[in-house]
Structures are given as structure tokens and as C-alpha cells.
């Protein structure tokens, strides 16, 4: 009798597991179709000279060989690193600052400030790009108008036309657009830190900076490290804002790797070569992800 029950239970397990597989199959199929297939397809076409329609000439590792020797690709990687580093740095500073202000108990109109500070994050990148293009415009831009009205400058500054200023102009917009996300994350983390810890630190004679270094920072570190890594990965492959502001110009001054990939593929119709670049970025992102996981494990 007991043996029979065992058999029945096995059959039930089998049915349960089959039913489980059946239920996850739609999600699995979506995952394969939307994530795995494009990924593999992208890697495969990096070995082809293709326009994606009627030309699929196998070229092997030709584009990888060409890419390794391509100085302009390394230059675009360098610009990407610069854009990523300063954007994430700027976002982090602003996010930490505003999150610490917004977490204060005695801050008046806290909800209003919180809503205003989150606003930039709600705007689509295209809108932000167009808005700031207008603000930066040398002829009728608001910045030049204010600076000239205050007699700070005689001639308009060509923010987006000058190779010395354009990257900083783009980074500034990117910081403005992206810091609210980090701020919201840090704000949530800050709210989980017990007030007792601050009181204890204060009783121990800790000043504001010491409280920040020894209570706040360790408290937000798990969230901060994850958010930082996400920000780095997002910025590394960021496209929309830069494209809408400068299209990678002038003279390639803001041609980051995502713009390089887009132009090679969609402007010059060299999709194979474009995919080769994308595979490189994919590898970099994978390395960053592994690093982040390792960092999280060491935190634990």
C-alpha cells in the first residue's frame, strides 16, 4: 500500500513538473525570442558582410582583425569611458547630496522638492536633447542670452560647436537627466537606516562628516554599489541623449561607442562591422557585471 502511494506521488511529481514547464514555456519562449535570439544573431552577423536583406558574405574574423587595428574605435572607447566616468560621478554627488537633504525630518515642503527633483527623470531623452539644444544654441539659446545680458561675455559661446566644451556640455545634460533615479534609490536606502545609529554616533561625539562616513555611507553602500554599477553600464552604452544633442560631433568629439555602432550599421549599412563593435561592448558590459557580482559577494 505504501509502495502504491509512493508510485502515485511520483506520478504527481512528474505531472507537477510537466505542468510547471508548460506554465513557464511562454515566458521562456519570450526570453529566447526577445533576448537570446537577437544576442546570438548579433554575434553571428559580426562574422558576415551583410546589409541584413540580400547580402550575407561570410568574412570570418576579418572585422575583428580590422577593429583591433582601428584607432578611431579606441578613441570612441576613450570618449565613452570619459563620458561614463564624469556622468556617474556627477550623478552620484548630486544624488547623495539631494537624498541627504530630502531625508531630513524638518525639511519644509519635502514632497514638493521631491517631486521637482524627480522631474528630469520623467522626460524622454529626445525631449531633453531638444530642450538643451535650444538652451545651448549660440544664436538664440537661453544661456548665451543670460550671459550676454549680464555682460559676462561679448560674443556667444558655441557650447555644442566647440570640441573643448561639447563633451562637458553633454555630460552636464546627462547628469541632470539621470541623477533623480540614483537619488530615489539612495533616499530609499537612507530611510532604512535606524535613527538610533545617528543618535548613538552623536552621543559618541561624531560630527556631520563622521556621521556620514561611519553611519550613512555603510548604510547605503549595498544600494549605492548596485546603483553605481547599473549607472556605469547604462552610461557606457548610452545613445539617445548624445545623438539628439550632437549626433557625435563636432569632428567626432562626442562620438562615443554607441554612436559609432549606430553610424556604422545604419548610416553606412555595414551591419557586420557594426555588430563586431557591439560584441566588444557586450564583453565589456559582461566584465562589469561579473565585477559587480564579485563586489556584492565580498560585501556579503
Amino acid at each position, binding site marked *: 500500500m505504501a509502495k502504491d502511494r509512493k508510485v502515485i506521488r511520483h506520478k504527481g511529481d512528474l505531472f507537477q513538473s510537466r505542468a510547471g514547464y508548460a506554465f513557464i514555456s511562454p515566458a521562456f519562449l519570450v526570453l529566447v525570442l526577445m533576448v537570446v535570439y537577437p544576442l546570438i544573431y548579433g554575434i553571428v552577423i559580426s562574422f558576415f558582410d551583410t546589409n*541584413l536583406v540580400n547580402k550575407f558574405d561570410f568574412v570570418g574574423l576579418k572585422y575583428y582583425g580590422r577593429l583591433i587595428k582601428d584607432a578611431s574605435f579606441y578613441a570612441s572607447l576613450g570618449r565613452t569611458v570619459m563620458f561614463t566616468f564624469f556622468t556617474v560621478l556627477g550623478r552620484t554627488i548630486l544624488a547623495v547630496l539631494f537624498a541627504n537633504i530630502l531625508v531630513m525630518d524638518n525639511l519644509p515642503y519635502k514632497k514638493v522638492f521631491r517631486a521637482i527633483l524627480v522631474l528630469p527623470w520623467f522626460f524622454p531623452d529626445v525631449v531633453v536633447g531638444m530642450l538643451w539644444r535650444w538652451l545651448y544654441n549660440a*544664436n538664440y539659446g537661453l544661456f548665451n542670452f543670460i550671459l550676454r545680458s549680464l555682460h559676462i561675455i561679448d560674443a556667444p559661446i558655441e557650447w*555644442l560647436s566647440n570640441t573643448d566644451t561639447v563633451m562637458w556640455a553633454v555630460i552636464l545634460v546627462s547628469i541632470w537627466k539621470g541623477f533623480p533615479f540614483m537619488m530615489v534609490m539612495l533616499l530609499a536606502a537612507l530611510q532604512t537606516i535606524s535613527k538610533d545609529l545617528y543618535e548613538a554616533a552623536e552621543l559618541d561625539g561624531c560630527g556631520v562628516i563622521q556621521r556620514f562616513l561611519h553611519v550613512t555611507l555603510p548604510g547605503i553602500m549595498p544600494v549605492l554599489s548596485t546603483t553605481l554599477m547599473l549607472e556605469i553600464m547604462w552610461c557606457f552604452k548610452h545613445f539617445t541623449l548624445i545623438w539628439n544633442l550632437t549626433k557625435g*560631433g563636432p*569632428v567626432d568629439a562626442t562620438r562615443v561607442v554607441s554612436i559609432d555602432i549606430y553610424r556604422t550599421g*545604419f548610416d553606412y*549599412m555595414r551591419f557586420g562591422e557594426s555588430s563586431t563593435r557591439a560584441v566588444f561592448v557586450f564583453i565589456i558590459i559582461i566584465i562589469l557585471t561579473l565585477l559587480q557580482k564579485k563586489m556584492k559577494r565580498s560585501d556579503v
Partner: protein
Amino acid sequence: MKRRLFTIVLSVLLVASVFAGGSSESTSSESGETVLTVLTTAVTQEPEGTLAKEYIAEFEAQHPGVHIECTGVPMNSALQRITTLAASGALPDLFVNVENIIGTLNEMGICEDLTPYLSEEEKSNIVDAVRESCTIDGKIIAYPWYSAPNALIFRTDWFEELGIEPPTTLEEMAAAAQKLTRDTNGDGTIDTYGFGLIGTNDDSGATRFVMIMRSFGARELYFEDGEWKTDVGSPESIQAFQYFADLKNKYGVVPPGAIENSFNENVNLMAMEQIGMLIAGSNSVGKIFNANPDLRGKIGSVQMPSAVTTYTPVSMLGWSLNPESKNKDLAIEFVKFMSNKENSIKWVETTGRLPVMKDAIAESDYLADPLFDGFIAGVENMVQAPNAPFYAEVKTELGRTYQKLLLDPTLDVAAEVKACGEAIQNIIDNNT
């Protein structure tokens, strides 16, 4: 058992829901009407969009049971959209084609040969240069709709006020630009500039630069003796780059932000009465008048000034037919309808875009306006732009070089232009 059946049915439904959705390829709707799918730039802009929709409604009224399903695409992203649609097997029956992407689209094998669909009379009615630009390897692969050839548009009232004759040479153009650059209200700041230089590294900027370079007698890309060649790096091309850079750096006749001022910004500057001359298509005049009606009667046009020759690219916009279309005859009927004499004449009167059919040009009173002199002269001398699939890349290289020279007056122009020529030669070598 019931539970198992229920699970299986539910799973099948879930899987089916993943693939649920309609096919984009539609030749007949549920009501039995024939659907012709069309991808066009016209509906994304005004006043073109309103008039195009009027024509479509008229065509549908003349063809009961036919529905034109129109999708808009901005010109700057047409190639990308067409490529992705073709790659995914969702190309519409008809799609926009222009001379700077025609070579690329033809190479993809997505343009039906229209030659068998056109009578000899219909073929010979198309302006010769336009027909040539629509033809690759003896096959007409695009049916032209209209053209917007570039000419030099200028402020006639300012020219009269300063006693300047409309320029016929680039030297005269630079001289006129210097006179037009002035402080009109005496506040110590220049408020009108002579020339609207499009310094962006995009098709608008590069096309205008090519017009100047070809005027000096240097061709950026041409097919000769069975191979693609470039003149970039030659003394004539160096002169052209020098001239272009001098407009900003030596003569100071272009408004601030020349490198970021695209076509639209320059049209706005002309409408805001801040520039006196601009290389632009006939449709720009309509945009300027829309933005500033006071300028009506104050703008004229001359054919692109020359250094040793003059060059006006065709600037044709037309339709290509998907070889997989199930409604080819209807599609051909539709494109012929859009370009017929009456519609072409109404089109130019509303949009400023010129007809490409000889009968419409001959019978349009509107084109007799002196405003169109430069554009009409351009139509008579239009030259087909290179149809190499890698032409866009060549233009980007030109753009990169002229931006460098505009930004840094201390650069050695000859060295930069020679480096540009080598880069273009590399592009040719990599693509042939």
C-alpha cells in the same frame, strides 16, 4: 484528468498568446477592400502632409474598394526604416526613394524595375536628369514625384539697398556676404550675417559643401573606367575647403554656431532676418514665408554660383515598388496619379517643391515667378549624384574635414584635405 486537460489547454493558450498579433503584410482587409501600403515622408511635414492626404482621398474616391494605408517617416531616417522593414519582411508596397539612398536600396534588391510599367511617352515626359537619377543599370527603379534642387536664395531688398548684384561666382558670393554682414542698429554687435553656412556633419551640410567643391571642379566621388574615384586631395578640392573655411574664419560672414546650425536652424535664421543668403531647395522658401510672411516678395534665387563650373544635384524624391507586392499595377497607377500634371502643379503652388514632369513644368504659371529663376535654372542643369552604396560614408568624411577646418583656422588645409582624400580612398577600397 480534467486538471491535466485544463493545464494543457491553458499552456497552449499562453503559448499562442505569445505569438498573437496581425501580420503587417496586408493586401485585403476584412471588409474585402484592397489595401495598398505606402511609406512616405510627405505626411510628416506641412503643408505637404495635408495636400498628400487630399490626393490620397481623391485616389481612393476614384478607386472604390481601395484603401491607401499611409505610414510617415522623416527623411533623415528613411534609409534606416526601409532597411529594417526589408530585413523583417514587412516592406510596404511602395516606399520613398531619393537619389542619395537609391544605390543602397537597389543593392538590397528591394526595388522593382519599373521600366515595363511605363510607356515611352511617360518615360520621355520625366525631366532627363531626374530620369537618369532614377535609373541604375538601365532599369528605372524609382518613379519620381517631385524635386527640390538647391539654389542660392537671397534677400532681394537687402541686395538692392546695398547695390549688390546677385552673385554668379563664388568670389562674388563671398564679397556680397561681407557687405551683408553688418551692425544694422548701431549697437556695436553684428546682427545680420551674409551667408547661412550649414556646418553640421549630416546630409544637408555635406550636400551643400559638395556643391561648392564641385563648383571648383573637384568631384567627391565618381565612376570612371569601371571604378569609383575621388578628386578629394587635388588642388581644386583644397581650394574648395579653404573657401568654405574662409567664409567663417577669414571673412566672418556666417552666424555663430555654424557647426551646429543644421538646415532647419538656417531656415529659421533666414526667417528671423539674420542671414542674407542661403543654399537651399525651393521648398525652403515656403517654410520661410510660413514663418515670416513679411518676407514675401523679398527673396529671390540664382543658380548655384560657380568657381570654374556650377553643380546642382538632382534632389529628386520618388517611389520604389516592393518586388514582393501583390498590388503592383495598382501601386503604379497610384504613383502616376500623384505625379500627374494637375497634381504636380498644385503641389508646387502649395509646397514650393518642383514638378519632375515636363508637361507640368511647361504649364505651371506659378514657376514663372522670378523667385523660381535660380531653381528652374538648376533643374535645367541638374546632375545626377553618385549612386554608390557607400556614398553616405564619403559624405561623412567630407563633413568631418570641413568641421575640423571651420573649428581650427590654424590647421594646414592641404594636409587635412589630403588626409580626407586618403580616407575616402580607403572607403572606396573597403567597399569595392
